[in-house]
């Protein structure tokens, strides 16, 4: 009887059996890499804004404190985007005729808010509260990165759950004293783990079991 398959079928069969393992591993790896990539999380991608507001200039250059504009960060779950009036505190006096700032003045005249593009947007099923993090000693920089070096704002982190859990599992690695909450480029005076553990007990931070309980963030 004639052969149904050519002799090469043997090699193809063996290759496909062994190859399947590598193909499956590669597909799994590729999927995971894509999932974590900046392409998916949009981390490190500067976002277009209606006015090219530079944190690098205002924070890094002029030394404004974060809380000058984001006033509600210590008392509210939401660190507010400042109203136009906050901009006009200074810009009614300096650069008051700059064409670049015309949208700010227009907003002030008409009362229409400037429609900033939101950069840090957590999913709706996550309950996140800025005030508790600030009160317990998590600095702005810990999550938002070196804002004083960002001409346009970008996400410093993936905002994926394993990133949240990094700190919730080991809070002592990031805690800092209240005096340095808004400091950019903070260097701990001493051993961070030691300071962190001391702050944990001073600030009554609960252990990782409570911090990583599902209902701590998903309510």
């Amino acid at each position, binding site marked *: 009887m004639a052969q*149904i398959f050519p002799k090469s079928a*043997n090699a193809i*069969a063996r290759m496909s059996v062994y190859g399947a393992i590598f193909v499956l591993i590669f597909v799994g790896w590729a999927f*995971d890499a894509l*999932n974590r990539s900046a392409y998916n999380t949009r981390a490190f991608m500067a976002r277009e804004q209606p006015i090219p507001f530079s944190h690098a200039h205002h924070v890094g250059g002029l030394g404004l404190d974060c809380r000058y504009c984001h006033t509600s960060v210590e008392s509210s779950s939401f660190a507010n985007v400042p109203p136009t009036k906050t901009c006009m505190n200074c810009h009614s006096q300096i650069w008051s005729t700059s064409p670049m700032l015309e949208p700010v003045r227009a907003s002030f005249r008409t009362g229409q808010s400037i429609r900033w593009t939101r950069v840090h947007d957590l999913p709706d099923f996550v309950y996140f509260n800025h005030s508790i993090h600030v009160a317990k000693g998590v600095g702005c920089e810990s999550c938002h990165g070196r804002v004083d070096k960002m001409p346009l704002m970008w996400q410093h982190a993936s905002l*994926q759950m*394993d*990133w949240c*859990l*990094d700190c919730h599992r080991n809070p002592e690695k990031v805690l800092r004293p209240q005096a340095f909450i808004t400091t950019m480029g903070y260097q701990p005076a001493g051993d961070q783990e030691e300071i962190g553990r001391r702050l944990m007990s001073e600030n009554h931070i609960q252990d990782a079991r409570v911090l990583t309980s599902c209902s701590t963030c998903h309510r």
Partner: protein
Amino acid sequence: MADDQQIVVEKPAPGEIIAPGYTFSTITDQISSVVLTRKTPLFWFAAFGFGGSLLMLFLLAVTVLLAKGVGIWGIRTPVMWGFAITNFVWWIGIGHAGTLISAILLLLNQSWRNSINRFAEAMTLFAVACAGMFPLLHMGRPWLFYWMMPYPNTMGIEPQFRSPLVWDVFAVSTYATVSLLFWFVGLMPDLGTLRDRTKNPIGRAIYGILAMGWRGSARHWSVYETATLLLAGLATPLVLSVHTVVSFDFTIAIVPGWHSTFFPPYFVAGAIYSGFAMVLALAIPLRSVYGLQGLITDKHLDNCGKIMLATGWIVAYAYMLELFGAWYGGNTYEQAAFWHRMTGPYAIQYWSLVACNIVAPQFLWFKRVRSSPVLLFIASIVVLVGMWLERFMIIVSSLAQDFLPSSWGIFQATRWDWATYLGTIGLFLFLFFLFVRALPMISIFEVRTLLPQAKVSKEGKR
């Protein structure tokens, strides 16, 4: 090649597992002709069409489910498991007989299994496929099923390994994998036979690829024997472990009526009970439609009937032990749970299950019942219904009335509950009759070893 008129099948003597007069070639002719040469009987079209229509109902039910959510089912607090988990346990139990026949009876050298193991293993696979549907659909968001698996993920978490529901995932997926491998390895020599016999070039290519170069050389047979024994060794503990893990879904919880230590053996016996009922329900029509009484003899049916009787008694013992435990344990809630079962809103189901699972199979004591295919068929259907009721009873009645009367509630099955359940029966029949049409439903080479000619004496070997 002989067609079926020429195959002379004498009625086998009682107690024989193969009719006299068969030769190596007539066995091969008769089994392969079902797939290759014989006209497809009307029965096949009817059964396949029936299964196919129910499968369409299943697709409709799943579509509606995905569009609207699990609320289309009758699952409401407190009975959140309802039909879905009942059907899951029922189907996965049915699968167990196939593994028992193929693995345990192989290791125990029960040669009568050779004639029924192939389609019993196919039954296992398709039953596991049906079973798997329910936990997946019951999740509500089945497309996230892979969250049940431990894999490196961006959420930074693992499944809860202390939950029996996670053990279920591993138990059932292992079971499905080993069953598939066992079935496929066992098919290879027969796929080689079909490849060599078919005249259809496409069929030849497909059977050829699936046979993976089987030539039947001595080396192939030696490797085959080793592989089968290893797989049988792997599958044997699975017969016991899979349903044990399924029973943990219940026993780990503290719900009255669930929290018992004897659930694992009770569930395994029930699984084999319902599985053999399904084997009979499939074998009896198949052998009469395809004229296979010479291969699946009355002795096979008799043996299956005896296993049903034995496992039925284990199940009956478990029911009694359950009641005894509730009484002897002195736990008010446990006692109330069983009192509710017998007299409460589900009393009809409870007493029907006693009638189906304990009373009806007692007829199997009689040789005349076990030698009548029609009566055996009826008995097996009754047992299948009874075993479904048993799972329904355990799940629904225990959840409906637990500790606090203020949280009691009655489960009302909706039409979508029924549509999904009947739909998986359709899926099962559809797959099974596809298998009957495309693959040899009886293992050709294993049945050939039952012939007296196949027994090689020591002198002959030398």
